C-alpha cells in the first residue's frame, strides 16, 4: 500500500488529541511530522501536549514548534473549551523529548523531499501555513492538498459568524485560501452535525488499558464542553477533517469560492462561502456540507478501538 505522507498541523487541544490518536494507528498515513501552532492554548502548552500524546501512544514522530502568535491580530485562546493546560482535566506524563524549534523549516523540507506528494492536515489556526507560504512561495507546487478543520458556512462558534480556528488568525486563513493549493474545508457545517453522546463514548471500548482510559477521559471532557447552546455531544471536529483522507464516503460537499472576512465588526473571521454562486470568482475550496453519520461512527470506533489491543 502506498501511504499518504502527511504533516499534521495542530494545537492540541482535546479534539486535536483525538485526531492524533486516529492518525497514529492509521496504516494509510506516513506521518512526517506534527507541527504545532498557538490556538486552543499557548504555543508552549500545545507543543508540550503534542509531545506527550506522541509518547503516550508510543510513537516516534517529530514534533516541531510553530507560530507563537497570529500574523496580525491579538492572540485569542480557547481555554473556555480546552482548559488551562489545553487538555482540560487530562494529565499526561512529562515528555522525554523536546520539540524541533522550527515548524516552517520542517514543512518546507518535507515538501521538497516529497516533490509534490505532501498532504497537510491543518486543524488549528492557519498561522504556520501562511508563514510557510509567504517565506516559500514555491510551496504552491510542492503540496498536494491541504485539509483544514475550520470555518463554517451556516454559523460560527466563537462568534455567530466565525469558527474558532479561523477567528484566531483570519489574516493567515486569507493567505492560505488565496494561495492556490487544493484546499478542503471541513467546517462546523459537518463537524457539528454529528458527535458522540456520553453513552457512545463509554461504549467505545470493551477492554481498557492506560491509553484507552486517556482517550475516553478526553472524550468525556469534550461531551457538553462547548456550552449549553449545543447538543451534549463530544464534537469530533479535527478527527473528522483527518478522516476525510481515509474514507471517500465520509463527507459530501462541492467546490465553492470562499472569501475570508478580515474587516467586519460582526463577521471578522467568517468564511464567506459563495453558496449561490453570486459571483464568478474561482472556486478555491471544496467545502464539506454533509457527513455520513453511519460511516463517521463506524470509522471512529474502528480507528480508536485499535488501542484496546495494545
Amino acid at each position, binding site marked *: 500500500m502506498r501511504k499518504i505522507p502527511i504533516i499534521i498541523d495542530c494545537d492540541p487541544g482535546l479534539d486535536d488529541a483525538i485526531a492524533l490518536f486516529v492518525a497514529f494507528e492509521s496504516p494509510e498515513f506516513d506521518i512526517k511530522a506534527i507541527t504545532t501552532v498557538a490556538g486552543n492554548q499557548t504555543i508552549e502548552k500545545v507543543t508540550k501536549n503534542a509531545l506527550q500524546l506522541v509518547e503516550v501512544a508510543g510513537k516516534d514522530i517529530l514534533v516541531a514548534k510553530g507560530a507563537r502568535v497570529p500574523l496580525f491580530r491579538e492572540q485569542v485562546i480557547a481555554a473556555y473549551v480546552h482548559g488551562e493546560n489545553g487538555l482540560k482535566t487530562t494529565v499526561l506524563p512529562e515528555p522525554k523529548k523536546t520539540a524541533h524549534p522550527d515548524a516552517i523549516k520542517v514543512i518546507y523540507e518535507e515538501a521538497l523531499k516529497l516533490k509534490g506528494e505532501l498532504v497537510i492536515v491543518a486543524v488549528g489556526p492557519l498561522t504556520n501555513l501562511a508563514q510557510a507560504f509567504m517565506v516559500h512561495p514555491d510551496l504552491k507546487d510542492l503540496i498536494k492538498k491541504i485539509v483544514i478543520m475550520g470555518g463554517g*458556512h*451556516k*454559523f*460560527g*462558534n*466563537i*462568534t*455567530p*459568524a466565525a469558527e474558532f480556528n479561523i477567528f484566531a488568525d483570519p489574516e493567515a486563513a486569507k493567505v492560505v485560501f488565496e494561495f492556490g493549493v487544493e484546499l478542503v474545508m471541513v467546517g462546523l457545517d459537518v463537524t457539528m452535525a454529528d458527535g458522540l453522546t456520553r453513552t457512545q463514548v463509554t461504549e467505545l471500548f470493551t477492554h481498557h488499558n492506560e491509553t484507552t482510559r486517556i482517550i475516553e477521559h478526553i472524550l468525556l471532557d469534550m461531551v457538553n464542553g462547548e456550552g449549553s*447552546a*449545543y447538543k451534549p455531544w463530544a464534537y469530533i471536529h479535527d478527527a473528522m477533517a483527518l478522516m476525510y483522507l481515509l474514507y471517500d464516503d465520509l463527507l459530501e460537499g462541492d467546490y465553492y*469560492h470562499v*472569501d*475570508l*472576512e*478580515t*474587516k*467586519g*465588526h*460582526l*463577521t471578522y473571521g*467568517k468564511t*464567506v*462561502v*459563495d*453558496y*449561490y*454562486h*453570486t*459571483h464568478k470568482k474561482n472556486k478555491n475550496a471544496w467545502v464539506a456540507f454533509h457527513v455520513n453519520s453511519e460511516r463517521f461512527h463506524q470509522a471512529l470506533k474502528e480507528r480508536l478501538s485499535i488501542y484496546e489491543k495494545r
Partner: protein
Amino acid sequence: MSFPILFDCDPGHDDAIALLMAFASDRFDIKGVTVTGGNQTLAKTLNNARRVLSFANKTARIAPGCDKPLMRELEVAPQVHGDTGLDGPYLPESDLPVEDKHAVELMKEVLENSTELVTLIATGPLTNVGLFLTMYPELKVKIKQIAIMGGAMIGGNWTSGAEFNILVDPEAAHIVFNSGLPIIMAGLDVTHKALIYKEDIERVRSVGKKVSTMVAELLDFFAKFHQSMGYKGAPLHDACAVAYLIDPSLFTSKEYFVDIETQGEFTTGATVVDQNNRYGKKPNTTVLLDINREKFVDLLVELVKHYA
C-alpha cells in the same frame, strides 16, 4: 378584522405583486405607501408604485422617500427588474396624486393620528424606515412590528455574504434591527423557497382579468431572469413579508437576535443571525425559515381574483 399598515417599497416586480396582494387582502387598512430607491431609482420606483395602484383601481396616500441610502451611493438592479424597474407588462402612466411631503413625514402623521399600533411592511432597502426611526424615536411606541423582506441567515444573493435590500443600505438596516422593535425577517432562507413555477404563472393568468394578466406578465419577466440564473422558479421575495402578515401559519420561523454587518470587506449587509446565542442577547427578530409553497401560491391566486 383589519389592522393599520404603512407599506414602504421600491417596485420592482415582487414589490408590485406584494402591493397588489396587500391591497386585495381584507386583513390590512393601508394608511400609506412610501417609496424608496432600490430596485430602480426613486423617480422610477415612485412612478411604478403609482402605475400599479392606478391600474388596479386602488388609491392610497403615497409619498416619495429617500433617493439614496443614508451613507452610501444607490445601487439599482436593472438586470433583475429592467430599465423601468417594472419591465414586462404594459402599464399606462398614472394620475394618482403624490403627497407633498417626504415619506418620513407621512409615516409621522399616520403614526401620530393612529389610535392602534401600526405595522410597517418594508420590501426595499430600509432607508426610509431607518431615517424615520432616527428622526422620530418617540413614535416607536406607535409601531407594532416591522415586517421586512431582506437579509438571509445563510448566504446572500447580491454578494456571497449579503442580500440586496440590506446590502444597498446596511446602515439603515442596522438602525432598524437595533431599534428594539419586533422585526419579522423574510430573508432568502424562506424567499428562495417561495418559488413560482411556470404552471403557477398560468394559474394566475387563467383568472382572466386585467390585473391577473398584468401579474402573470410581471411574473413572466421575473421568471425569465431567474431562469437565466439557474433558479427552478421565480423567488417571490417581497410577497413573503405580506403573506406572513396575512397568514403566519404558512410559515415556520424561529426567534433570534440579528445584527447587521456594516464594515465587512465581503460581508457588508450581512444579517448576522445568532443561531447559537453567542451574544446572549434577547431575540429581536422572527426569522422566517420555511414556507408551505402550495398554500402560498393558492393565497396569491385567491388575492389576484379580488381584482376585476
